[in-house]
């Protein structure tokens, strides 16, 4: 079986782009026909094959050391890397905290928010990943295809995956291209 392998993962996003992927409905069978779906957040495999995949897809931006690791690993193991959705392409909604800084955002979320119990504090378990400024994927590793959208339409995702699975170079324009 010589079908191209596709793997995906998510980082600092909301899973909405993967939802949109599933939104392509029965067309996902077409993708399975064309390609070998390997590790994804919705399949059992948890990491892209060590031997490498043809297409790696990343949802979400990079906002901590764990995300950074995921992005590096996917880049190393993929021939073609796709940044899927506004968070992966631009930083998206999580990047809004860059406007106030990590500390202020954590303070607001864990301590100052009205819904927090009195005496709440910012989690400080040493095993937790270190928070960073939110970055787009292309700020951390080279990206081959940026697919914006919040989320990108199922049609867009189907087009990108189908084209890549068949070894063609997708061109995003007109109806398939939007940033919102």
């Amino acid at each position, binding site marked *: 079986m010589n079908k191209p392998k596709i793997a995906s993962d998510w980082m600092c996003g909301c899973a909405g782009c993967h939802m949109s992927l599933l939104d392509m409905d029965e067309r996902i069978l077409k993708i399975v026909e064309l390609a070998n779906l390997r590790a994804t957040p919705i399949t059992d495999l948890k990491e892209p094959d060590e031997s490498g995949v043809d297409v790696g897809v990343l949802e979400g931006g990079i906002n901590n050391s764990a995300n950074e690791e995921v992005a590096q690993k996917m880049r190393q193991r993929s021939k073609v890397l796709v940044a899927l959705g506004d968070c992966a392409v*631009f930083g998206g*909604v999580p990047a809004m905290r860059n406007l106030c800084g990590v500390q202020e955002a954590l303070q607001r979320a864990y301590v100052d928010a009205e819904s927090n119990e009195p005496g709440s504090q910012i989690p400080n378990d040493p095993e937790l990943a270190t928070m960073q400024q939110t970055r*787009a994927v292309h700020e951390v590793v080279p990206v081959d*295809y940026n697919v914006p959208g919040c989320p990108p339409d199922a049609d867009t995702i189907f087009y990108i995956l189908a084209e890549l699975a068949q070894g063609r170079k997708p061109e995003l324009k007109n109806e398939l291209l*939007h*940033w*919102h």
Partner: protein
Amino acid sequence: MVQITINGKQMEVPEGTTVLRAAEMAGIHIPRLCDHKELTPYGGCRLCIVEVQGVRVPMASCTLPVNNGMVVNTETEALKKSRKFVLSMLFSERNHFCPFCQVSGGDCELQNAAYQEEMTHWPIQPGWNNFPVDTSHPYFVFDNNRCILCRRCVRACAEMAGNFTLSVAERGAKSMIVADTDIPLGESSCIKCGSCVQVCPTGAIIDRTSAYQMRDRDLTEVKSICNGCSVGCSIKIMVRDNRIVRIEGDWEGSVNHGVLCEFGRYNAANESRKRITTPMMKKNGKLEPVSWEEALKAVSAKLTPLASDEDGIAAIASTRLSAETLTAFKDLFAGNQLVTSLEEGMPSASVMKFAEKQGTFEGKLEVLRTADTVMCIGANVGNTHMVAGFIFKRNMPKGTRVINIDPQEDALDDVASLKLKNKSGSDLALILGLQAIIVKEGLERRPMSIPDVDARIDEAVRATAISLDNLSQAARVLANSITPVILFGKGITGQRDENLVEELYKLAVLVGAVDSERAGLISVKGETNSLSAALLGLDQIFELNGQKAVYAAIGDSFVSKSIVERLSKAPYLVVQASYESKLTEQADVVFPVTVWSEQEGTFINLDGHIQKTTKVINAPETVRDNLAVISELAVQMNISLNSNWKEAILARKSSVALN
């Protein structure tokens, strides 16, 4: 004409045309952000760059005038690359994250430009700086984070509204749009015309009432005429689900060219009066809902025997009603003597009387565009008929002088080059005084014999309590102008003195405002259909003298205290109105009728443009059209409404040419 080749297409365009406009004429679209067809080219965004043969670098086509033999290319690979670069720089400057922006998804010119260039991302991330968001304004939010510094708003403020509130502070990346001396917009000199909202290409200035509700493509755009005042601005009404979402100025409008005032843009949003939806009749001293049949029957039973009695019925109508409605109204009460309008001829009776003698003497608003001096007398264009004021205020930096004469406070005083606060009631003395000074100093353009020159000047100084110096200064500025215009309003016409208008006309002739080629004398009149009402002769003072019933067709007008007071003496009062008011409270019968946006009709603006309004939304089912109510009543009263509105209106000599 100049020869130019754009993308291989040869064409001839007038000298002085910019390359961008020339391309448009050839049907070639050049992307642009800072350019706007109603604003002076600025050359700020650099998106409209083109290649010109023989020129080393790309040129901004919006500020580049055509040259004979110029060869231009707008779509080369190098240009595409440069445009993408320009766009990525704009995106990287501030917060242009699309998912949470009001205009994202079709209404953002920046986003659309990016799509057109097939940008999938921006290569340089923004600097994450926070810029101020100004929420102090009642109608819009100014978010500097979304601003691309195209300065369309700054230019619109100056070139459309002539208000000069917005400007740019700081330089380079720190540049910021500010109001006045960097104070909150809501506390600034802003007159809330909303022109800046209409021209903003991004989500930097967003309209509070319609924000985050829907995209423009979900709205139906209907063109109509503003019902705010007699200027008669062309508007675009954005409608969805039988609701007015937003009102914008129509760029194609011949009177206003896209600009509106606060009332015109936000009156639908500001309407807070309570609507009347059922006919009502007074029973046992209390207004009770009744059927249309019952109400019409009761009114016709009461009015029919009085219809041919001269003093049987008094009738008063709003000048916000269409010409068709006003004509039918006049026909319905043809047998009665006191048939007038809510304006009682205040803005027009004296003007029309003078027109009977003089013929058409008023000019078109167009003359204000080229006026080098505008004398406003009792016109109050700083507060009403504001768009007429915008036309000349915007030329003040180019040297147009404004003389404002008004005993009352007027917002125009703040910007006028010269303001004269004469004593109330001294207008005639003032006008005669100005004439006399001009003749005495030999400044008149046309010889005219003015008797008792010195006595007139003395009287003017005495009566107006304005110093001779100031009067002389005004007279000299006016007389030394090349294209002066005199604008007058209710301050003058409200005195119902035909003589005042005549003397003003003489002054206009003396200073060359009116001659064989120009007609630089204009009265601003009153409400939307003021001129129609005047031409129909609905201009008597409303004073009841023994009438047994009163019919008040006030539509959606506000009614003055004085009228309410005079109507309280009516033995039987029928009110045809859209909203509850003190007047409907005291009525014996109330007919609920349509408001301006629910009916169509003809309106004649202050300079004689005959314009049609459009029915934009459907009225509640139990509410009837203003004209329909009058027609139905006529049927029940067995009165025929024969007059054709056009003939009825043309029967009287108009002070301004109708077209």
